[in-house]
């Protein structure tokens, strides 16, 4: 088991490295080097960068040296929490991203949790009552959930909220608290705002997960161990929840990793529509404006988050499936 987790952790480290290389490549993409564009940027704002300062920057970023040296210098800064300067916002990247990274994580995890809370019971019901009316209804809603683009759903909900309840549903905070420092009231405010974006972001995933859960469980329900469990005299609910559901859940634990980035990338348009302060819209703007330090940083941070998510799901998988523990111990 330790060997398994060790292998996974090693893979994670390697993946993080690959992502960092990718982020670095993104930063290097625009023509000209960073310091030159920085000077031009500053000049356009009316402030002059002294030659000495420019020289310092060149040394700091290793400009003019081989590319791997530049990469290492950049990594050194990143590890210290210095992600460079955003041309577009004229502020350090860390300041621009601010809470957005954490809010992205919060919204995505909420969407993921909601997906599970909805998809698992519905999927179980659909499998256990295969071809029942409820199964058909779930399937129908599921396909609608898959077919309707989530930004459209977001628009519809905004519209309905506005016309029916005269309420503005967007955002993650009430305007008064938007820029307030963190407090209990603000956390509670966030909590109250979460369900709608989580629902909209999670709907397509929910539809998909219902199908997966249903198919997994239908497979498991046919296995002889279910007959064994039943023949002991266990109640039907216990038979199903303890045995086939447990096995049908395994594939889910392994999907956490890639569901998260799926939600984040899927959230860009929804975030714009709903005015959510996540990194999605920021990434889009940064790419359009060729604000490469910002874009590269967002890609890097999201990538690392995903790797962490995958690692967590791998460990979770060991926990739910003891068979993995047995493999080459």
């Amino acid at each position, binding site marked *: 088991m330790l060997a398994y987790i060790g292998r996974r952790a090693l893979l994670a480290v390697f993946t993080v490295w690959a992502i960092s290389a990718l982020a670095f490549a993104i930063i290097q993409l625009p023509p000209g080097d960073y310091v030159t564009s920085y000077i031009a940027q500053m000049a356009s704002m009316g402030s002059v960068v002294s030659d000495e300062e420019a020289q310092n920057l060149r040394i700091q970023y290793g400009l003019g040296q081989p590319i791997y040296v530049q990469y290492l210098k950049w990594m050194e800064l990143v590890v210290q929490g210095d992600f460079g300067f955003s041309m577009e916002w004229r502020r350090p990247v860390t300041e621009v991203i601010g809470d957005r990274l954490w809010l992205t994580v919060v919204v995505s995890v909420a969407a993921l949790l909601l997906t599970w809370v909805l998809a698992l019971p519905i999927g179980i019901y659909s499998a256990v009552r295969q071809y029942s009316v409820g199964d058909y209804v779930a399937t129908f809603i599921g396909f609608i959930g898959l077919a309707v683009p989530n930004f459209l759903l977001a628009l519809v909900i905004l519209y309905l909220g506005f016309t029916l309840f005269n309420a503005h549903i967007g955002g993650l905070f009430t305007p008064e608290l938007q820029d307030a420092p963190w407090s209990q009231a603000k956390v509670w405010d966030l909590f109250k705002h979460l369900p709608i974006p989580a629902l909209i972001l999670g709907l397509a995933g929910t539809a998909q997960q219902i199908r997966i859960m249903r198919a997994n469980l239908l497979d498991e329900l046919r296995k*002889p161990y279910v*007959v064994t*469990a039943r*023949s*002991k*005299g266990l109640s039907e609910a216990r038979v199903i929840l303890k045995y086939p559901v447990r096995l049908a859940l395994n594939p889910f634990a392994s999907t956490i990793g890639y569901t998260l980035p799926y939600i984040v990338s899927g959230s860009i348009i929804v975030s714009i529509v709903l005015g959510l302060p996540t990194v999605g819209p920021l990434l889009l703007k940064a790419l359009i404006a060729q604000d490469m330090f910002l874009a590269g940083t967002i890609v890097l941070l999201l990538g690392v988050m995903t790797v962490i998510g995958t690692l967590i799901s791998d460990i979770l998988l060991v926990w739910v499936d*003891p*068979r993995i523990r*047995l493999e080459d111990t």
Partner: protein
Amino acid sequence: MDCGTPPIPMDVRTATQTLLSVRNLKTYFPQDEGTVKAVDGVTFDLYPGATLGIVGESGCGKSVTARSILRIVDRPGRIVDGEIHFRRPTTNGGAGQTVDLTKLEPNGPEMRAIRGAEIALIFQEPMSSFSPVHSVGNQIIEAILLHQQVSRRDARDKTIEMLQRVGVSSPEARVDQLASQLSGGLRQRAMIAMALSCHPTLLIADEPTTALDVTTQTQILELMRQLQREDGMAIMLITHDLGVVAEMATDVAVMYLGRVVEQAPVDAIFHAPQHPYTRALLRSIPRMRARSRARLTPIVGAVPHPYDRPSGCPFHPRCADFMAGTCDRRAPSLRPVGDQHTVSCFLYE
């Protein structure tokens, strides 16, 4: 008693002592293509402490009969007719009231109290009949906790004791292992331990040794016999292996296409088979002590598709004694032809 009138005459032994008495059981699976009549009028009796061998070709409804008795037939299958009278033991071990299992709610409290505690099941796939992610012990302990008022610790001790009884070496260690860590033979032993953990009066064994090699098969059968001697439970042994039947059974019921065509004590089946199908079945297996090198004759024809059963006697298209105008028109019913010997064939009507 709530037996109603049985369709065939029952002798004294039947009326007073049967542990399990199945009458005209029909279990159908409605499908888009038509109804699969998996069990179509099964009738047999099983006595306390006896071993009833159920034999018949693949697909004749042996497993569905077993599951019908336990009321765990897979949907969309359901019992459409018939009775299953089971004599429940009293708390002091004596014979108690009979209940008609077909009248019980499949997942109701009474059926669940019977299932696993009074009627237990073991079946073919020792590989997949344990959950791959729960320890063997966990699954046995669960059965004990469900039916007996004992603490978890006691249940665990009982489990270890039971594993010991069925011949699992170092049961203290095995109890926490997964089924995949056990060999096929050990797994089937653990399965038997689980089935017998609550001391059932009836053990249904659905081809318990088919998936095992010959040596292990012999050991498992010997184990079942030994446990039967010690615990006195009745065994309903489903198999296509007539050799196993000869070795284990006290009585035999021969099934063909969802029906019992002949039931008799084991000696009568082997030495005086009455039904043409039973005779054909016996001719199709090699005899160990055959004097001459008698030729094996496979049964002609194939088992008909379950959707379109032949009219009249279901065996008539393959029968050597087919009587035109009778066998293809009407269906015969089980009639006594000797002591505890019943046959369903027009040759004896």
